[in-house]
């Protein structure tokens, strides 16, 4: 199987969907002539032309709202946010309009829109550019949010998102864009709402999404090699809908859970996961559920300190060792 980068996987997914469905259109800042701020859409303008690949002005509330309106009439816009951190200037459109139109119309209207872009810290871009708003999105019924960690998942989830009839928000990671992984040639999708066991293990479940999945895999290897602790790594992939069964089965098997995310702790995604585990697997737990989140402050600029603020491998290793 060929190895391609996470970035290429996203581009392949969008390209294949553009070719499959004439209603798919890519809209965003610098996606066309500039070839994408992070080169995710590189070469697509040349290949598909300006009707399908559209440069938007810096006007997120305007063009995201416009995409929502167009999707009500059956267009399938894939809107790029240069950073998910920029979503807040379009919050009314993203949260209020996209999530509510179907409900308020009694199911008469669908909003098949995709909004995608990076949502991660770790690149020294400061507090305004380092947000991970998956918890806000997941708190909003009507919206779906996925956070792929690998090239394979990025492609399969992006294709599923574009084909989905509900609004699906795809949160990527600039740190992962250059990381390669095996991706098959043939057409495939990954069902939204399906978690993935990235590493099987018997002693403790490390449950994560997005880049922390990669962090957990590295920590799991160290824990195996140096401490003979056998970690299972559960990649949520989709936050809402959530694959509760896979989480619960894993915790029932291992009896221990460490939840790792880049989100802030208060009302973060893992607060919900912790509730879920105590609710459905309390009797199987051999130790209290542990959480590792970003340190609870705005994203610091200073590069070495930002490394400390985010969940790194050594922190995960240390937290797991505390359970044994």
């Amino acid at each position, binding site marked *: 199987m060929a190895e391609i980068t996470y970035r290429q996987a996203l581009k392949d997914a969008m390209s294949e969907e553009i070719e499959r469905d004439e*209603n798919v*259109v890519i809209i965003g800042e610098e996606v066309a002539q500039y070839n994408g701020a992070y080169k995710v859409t590189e070469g697509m303008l040349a290949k598909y032309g300006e*009707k399908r690949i559209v440069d*938007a*002005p810096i*006007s997120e*509330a*305007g*063009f*995201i*709202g*416009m*995409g*929502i*309106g*167009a*999707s*009500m*009439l*059956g*267009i399938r816009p894939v809107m790029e946010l240069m950073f998910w951190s920029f979503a807040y200037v379009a919050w*009314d*459109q993203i949260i*209020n*309009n996209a999530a509510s*139109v*179907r*409900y*308020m*119309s*009694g*199911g*008469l*209207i*669908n909003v098949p829109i995709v909004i995608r872009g990076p949502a991660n810290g770790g690149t020294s871009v400061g507090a305004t550019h380092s947000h991970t708003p998956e918890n806000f999105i997941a708190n909003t*019924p*009507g919206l*779906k949010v996925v956070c792929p960690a690998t090239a394979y998942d990025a492609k399969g989830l992006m294709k*599923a998102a574009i*084909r*989905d*009839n*509900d609004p699906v928000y795809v949160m990527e990671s600039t740190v992962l864009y250059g990381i390669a992984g095996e991706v098959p040639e043939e057409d495939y*999708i990954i*069902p*939204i*709402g*399906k*978690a993935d066991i990235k590493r099987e293990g018997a002693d403790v479940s490390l449950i994560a999404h997005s880049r922390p999945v990669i962090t957990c895999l590295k920590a799991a290897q160290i824990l195996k090699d140096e401490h003979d602790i056998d970690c299972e790594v559960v990649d949520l992939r*989709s936050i*809402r*809908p*959530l*694959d*509760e069964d896979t989480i619960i089965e894993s915790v029932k098997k291992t009896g221990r859970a460490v939840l790792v995310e880049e989100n802030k702790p208060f009302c973060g995604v893992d607060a*919900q996961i912790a509730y879920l585990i105590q*609710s459905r697997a309390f009797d199987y737990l051999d130790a209290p559920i542990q959480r590792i989140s970003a340190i609870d402050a705005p994203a610091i600029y200073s590069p070495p300190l930002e490394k400390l603020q985010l969940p790194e491998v050594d922190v995960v290793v240390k937290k797991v060792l505390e359970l044994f």
Partner: protein
Amino acid sequence: MSSKAKPSPRKSKKSDAVDLAKEAKLPINKDLSDDQKIDFLRQMVRIRRFEERSLRVYQQGKIGGFLHLYIGQESVVMGCASLMGDDDHLITTYRDHGHALSVGMTMNECMAELQGKATGCSKGKGGSMHYFAPDKNFWGGHGIVGGQTPLGAGIAYALKYKGIKGSCMCFLGDGAINQGAFHESLNLAALWDLPVIFIIENNGYSMGTSQERSSAFPEGGLAARAEGYNIEWDSISGESIYAVRDGVNKAIERAHNESRPTVLEIHTYRYQGHSIADANHKKYRTKEEIEDYRQTRDPINIYRLHLMEAGILTEEASKQIDTEARAEAEASAQFADDSPYPQPEAITEDVYWSVDNDDQTTSQGTHFFND
């Protein structure tokens, strides 16, 4: 700075006094049949009687939340809706009852929606502010001031993308023109040649704040702000349904033939408060002001009088229209009373397409977290 900007005018001026006899001869109006003209009256009267009846239902405590009445503004939407072809679409604010009825939604489904009944147009899930009828090219009913303006641009974008010669009439109030989303929509509409018509229904007050206290604008009025985006604009008296039709028709033709946007300011007036919960509405304006509109500028009265003077409408026919509209409104109130509330299960229906159509989707997992 060496140059000094001119001070902004305080009040967006109304256009000249209306002259329906003259406006009836304008190209868009001159071929109207008597039946069509009478039907415009009938539809406006239906909107008013529906809303008057809904006010009573509200006062009986059967309607929750807000009730934003359109009484006094009926000629605006009726003029616009009377021009809609198969590919012309409409989206508006929370003051949406007139828009809904004018595109052909029934009083029954609208009144039932006000009462939160399962037979409402949105199954009781939207309420007064959120009526929808996509089968009639009506895309809501939106609660956040200015929030619908990018959606309106998007509807126009979809039409253009599909190669359809149509338009989207996107209504907003004078209070919405200061929202960023509106300006972003204007820029996109001009930049991308979108066939959208932004129709500012200027009723003089953004909730309790008069237009003089809320908006800065150039000499020509609120729509003249469109100059800054190189968009054509016009200022129209909403008292005359004929004048509305004339101005809006030019904008529709521009949308159809040139795929260009237009901004229209239509001067109008609401007799009721911002919503029925607005107990202050006689404090931020005088009783005399309201009465003056009712007596001398009411768009339905002006039009009814014109039809009678033109020999198109008799007193009896006028009374019959009124009687029928009252009866229809009364029946809708009864229909709403007799209708059931939605079942509790309805709370989590119509949230996700993939949940409501789980046999047709690959999406899986837990969508709701109520356990």
